[in-house]
């Protein structure tokens, strides 16, 4: 099958809303969205806290976060696997080879990215915002909220970068999810499998869907940061 034939067949699967393809795409979105939501809840407060601290006091944790930003997905998957496997400390939960385990693996990948990029964003103007809010009589909570609100472009960028990272990764979800059809198979693992099986039209179709989702996410970021005028296009 040529690449062109593959693309035509792929579009046919997309336009006919092929149930297999749709199910995989929806599970991918679901797992990544939940993982990024949880990573945002953890990473944004952590990044804000670190961003407002003097650099010399956060040197070690900053280095750690930067290192973890480049964490290979298979390593993250392996660690989560060891934690969740039957003999692991969290084995009693019985969530290995379930979407929950995949969320955990993607969470581990997204948190350092969201926290580190938030920290960098907060450092650029967070101190000034904090001082201004304080001088105007804001309490701790309002000051923190003001800092986050004023750094929203950087924070949104961090979240989208985190989402882009996890939705496209394959190693971690393969290890902890097992790529079980109808249960833990997501777009990236399905692409690997279908390519190996020679079902290139399905692999290309999934690739197009993945690219399209990535385009939508990045377009939203571009517009939110002022590059566009409200339209995704």
């Amino acid at each position, binding site marked *: 099958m040529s690449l062109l034939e593959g693309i035509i067949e792929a579009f046919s699967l997309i336009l006919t809303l092929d149930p297999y393809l749709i199910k995989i795409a929806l599970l991918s979105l679901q797992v990544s969205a939940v993982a990024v939501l949880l990573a945002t809840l953890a990473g944004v407060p952590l990044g804000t806290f670190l961003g407002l601290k003097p650099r010399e006091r956060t040197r070690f944790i900053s280095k750690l976060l930067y290192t973890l930003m480049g964490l290979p997905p298979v390593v993250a998957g392996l660690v989560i696997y060891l934690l969740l496997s039957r003999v692991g400390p969290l084995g009693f939960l019985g969530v290995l080879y379930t979407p929950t385990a995949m969320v955990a693996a993607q969470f581990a990948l997204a948190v350092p990215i969201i926290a580190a990029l938030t920290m960098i964003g907060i450092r650029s*103007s967070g101190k*000034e*915002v904090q*001082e*201004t*809010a*304080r*001088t*105007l*009589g*804001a*309490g701790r909570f*309002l000051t923190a909220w*003001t800092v986050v*609100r*004023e750094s*929203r472009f950087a924070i949104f960028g961090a979240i989208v970068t985190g989402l882009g990272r996890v939705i496209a990764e394959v190693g971690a979800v393969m290890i902890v999810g097992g790529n079980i059809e109808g249960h833990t198979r997501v777009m990236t693992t399905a692409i690997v499998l279908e390519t190996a099986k020679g079902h290139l039209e399905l692999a290309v179709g999934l690739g197009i869907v993945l690219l399209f989702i990535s385009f939508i996410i990045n377009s939203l970021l571009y517009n939110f940061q002022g590059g566009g005028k409200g339209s995704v296009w």
Partner: protein
Amino acid sequence: MSGNKIILEVKKLSKVYDKEVLNIEHLSFHKGKIYGIIGPSGAGKSTFLRLVNLLESPTKGYIYFKGEKIFLNDHTAALARRDMTMVFQKPLLFHTSVAENIAYGLKARRFPKEKIKARVEALLEKVGLKEFAGRHAATLSGGEAQRVALARAVAFEPALLLLDEPTANLDPTNVQLIEQLILELNKDTEMTIIIVTHNIFQARRVAREVVFLHEGHIVEAGETKKIFTSPEDPRTKAFVEGRMVY
């Protein structure tokens, strides 16, 4: 009675970074007056304001606001900040409308909505930006932004207003506008105002009393007229006559 009551007092106040940048034995500020803190660059003027506004802790010494000893890291800081504020040389306006910026301190103090609206409108009129209420703060010029920052600071009528070089880098028209606003605010509200400036002419125009700082120490303090016409210390004389190179 205005002019007699001490609103701010500092005792044995010092700040050391790599070296000592401020060391004030004693200084007091009375209600309703405008004070000018003058001195060459590096004299410790801005450090003094940051310590008073509890943005930094002093290395030694104490600050008394309305008779209460205040510290950066306890409840006294929050209480003091309810009644004092500071305008920076380069004001940071929040990424929202002009009206929302001015309302910030009022919202932080949970003023009723109607009162916030009325106060914001009155202040916009006062600073000559009535038609700018809905404008995004990022679209303002430097002078307009500084007027908004001033309106935002005085919206909740603090007892003490600290101004750190509020007209540096502004054109003469905006300098005049800001100075006029400072004088009007002081007259209307009896707000105590401390203005840090390296502009001796501004201090002379605005302040009733002047403190001359040099290398972190008070060289001379007193009524503006006296400091400018018959200074006692030769360093003060050199500074007010523009002979001190800095």
